[in-house]
């Protein structure tokens, strides 16, 4: 009972079967994808405006910069960097709090099971998308033009950028809620407000806090750069230090930002673990 004929006396050599990993169509589509990728990269490399001399001594210059940053000027931290850091945190937190005044109504309007009027859904979606497609730094430029330089512009930039993000996630959470409790409350004669407060809010509450914390974490990162366009916070201190080539101070600021960003992340993970 020789189940596996040895290759030596192979009687069906002419019937030898071919195996390829992909069908012809799959192979062609893979080649096309690679072709598109290679073509895009080739186009970018050929036409991008990079000065060869810059590219050549880039590693050297980077190393030079890092050397000049060492050691960080820790003495500079208090009070200049510290105050700016606190201001940055205020901007991030206030921006997150204020964004909800716009995000909650828009989310309610965008959720199809809450607001049955289709044109209003679309309108709210459009508002959320508009908020998201403009970067917080661009929002900051706009609000600096409106309020003048300072932290107020930063708070508004963060708030307006967050509306789209928070509103989208919130409306998705709303659309996932169970219809049953609302129906029961309506049957018991509850008003719209009562329905929302006792039928919908308990269902989205965990998601709500999760989203708020998530966005706050992002906002801490984002608010650190707003100062570069004059919207307050630690970015301003960083910009000054860079413009005056005080690299030891730059290092201090960078370390401070790094510490706060990591701290924010730790805090958020802790609170989320306790909430959820």
């Amino acid at each position, binding site marked *: *009972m*020789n*189940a596996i*004929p040895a290759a030596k006396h*192979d009687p069906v050599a002419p019937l030898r079967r071919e*195996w390829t*990993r992909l069908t012809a169509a799959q192979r062609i589509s893979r080649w096309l994808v690679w072709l598109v990728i290679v073509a895009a990269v080739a186009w970018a490399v050929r036409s991008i405006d990079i000065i060869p001399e810059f590219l050549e001594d880039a590693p050297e210059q980077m190393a030079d910069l890092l050397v000049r940053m060492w050691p960080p000027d820790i003495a500079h931290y208090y009070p200049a960097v510290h105050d700016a850091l606190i201001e940055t945190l205020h901007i991030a937190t206030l921006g997150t709090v204020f964004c909800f005044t716009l995000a909650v109504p828009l989310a309610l309007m965008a959720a199809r099971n809450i607001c049955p009027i289709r044109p209003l859904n679309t309108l709210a979606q459009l508002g959320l998308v508009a908020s998201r497609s403009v970067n917080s730094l661009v929002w900051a430029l706009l609000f600096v033009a409106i309020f003048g330089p300072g932290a107020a512009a930063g708070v508004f930039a963060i708030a307006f950028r967050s509306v789209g993000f928070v509103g989208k996630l919130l409306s998705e959470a709303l659309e996932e809620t169970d219809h049953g409790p609302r129906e029961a409350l309506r049957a018991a004669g509850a008003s719209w407000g009562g329905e929302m407060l006792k039928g919908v809010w308990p269902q989205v509450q965990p998601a709500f806090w999760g989203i708020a914390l998530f966005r706050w974490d992002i906002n801490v990162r984002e608010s650190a750069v707003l100062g570069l366009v004059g919207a307050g916070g630690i970015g301003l201190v960083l910009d000054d230090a860079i413009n005056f080539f005080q690299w030891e101070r730059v290092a201090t600021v960078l370390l401070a930002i790094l510490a706060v960003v990591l701290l924010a992340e730790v805090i958020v993970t802790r609170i989320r673990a306790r909430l959820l």
Partner: protein
Amino acid sequence: MSASMTASAPAAGLASALEIRGLVKEYVAGKPVLRGVDLAVPAEGITAIIGPSGTGKSTLIRCINRLVEPTRGSIKLHGEELTGLSGRGLRLARRRIGMVFQEYNLVERLSVMENVLSGRLGYVPLWRAWLRKYPAADIERAFMLLDAVGLPEHATRRADALSGGQRQRVGIARALMQRPDILLADEPTSSLDPRTAVEVLELLTRLTAAEGVPVIINIHNVDLAKRYARRIVGMSGGSVIFDGPPEQLETHHLRAIYGGEDWM
């Protein structure tokens, strides 16, 4: 009945393929899982290792191809010492040792054919493996093995589309694809229903007999072990306490291996 049962030649007359001497494995220092195992595996037929869970059967098998690092002792495959090998030497030794796993361990997102051909990874150069440009002879053998395990039409299906029994057949084909000097099977039937388990064991016995590959198999089911193995090794508490042909395995041995007798 299968060929291996009827051709039950005296094991003593054969040269052994694998020799294990004084094998000790301690995952935690001072708490050995294997306490000095001595074992000689004959050059053909199935050797079944039986014993309660947690007695180190799986560790023993994994020490042979060094998926588990033995603490002390010697393992010789056709006279070549396996302990202490590393890097290329270890890979060359591993490609001579086929292995079939309890949960099949197929790469689920690859096709059946790619899984079978992966048995040649120890032989083909990296670029061939990467581009799936295997030698024609390898592909031919893979098809023959798929025929032999009864899955020729499944070659291009993804492994996760197969049933448990089918997956284990692919696992056997993959192991035999290595043209191994010895085949290790770690509880190959424990995840299968009784009927499929018998089918898979039948297949394993038939194919390895045809290829002349000796098999070491860990198995829970004593009846199946007695039916298919030429030799039975009973382990308990990290030591071998029975070693002989299935006919000699008596009730008192089983009592010693598994303890108690309520289960019998």
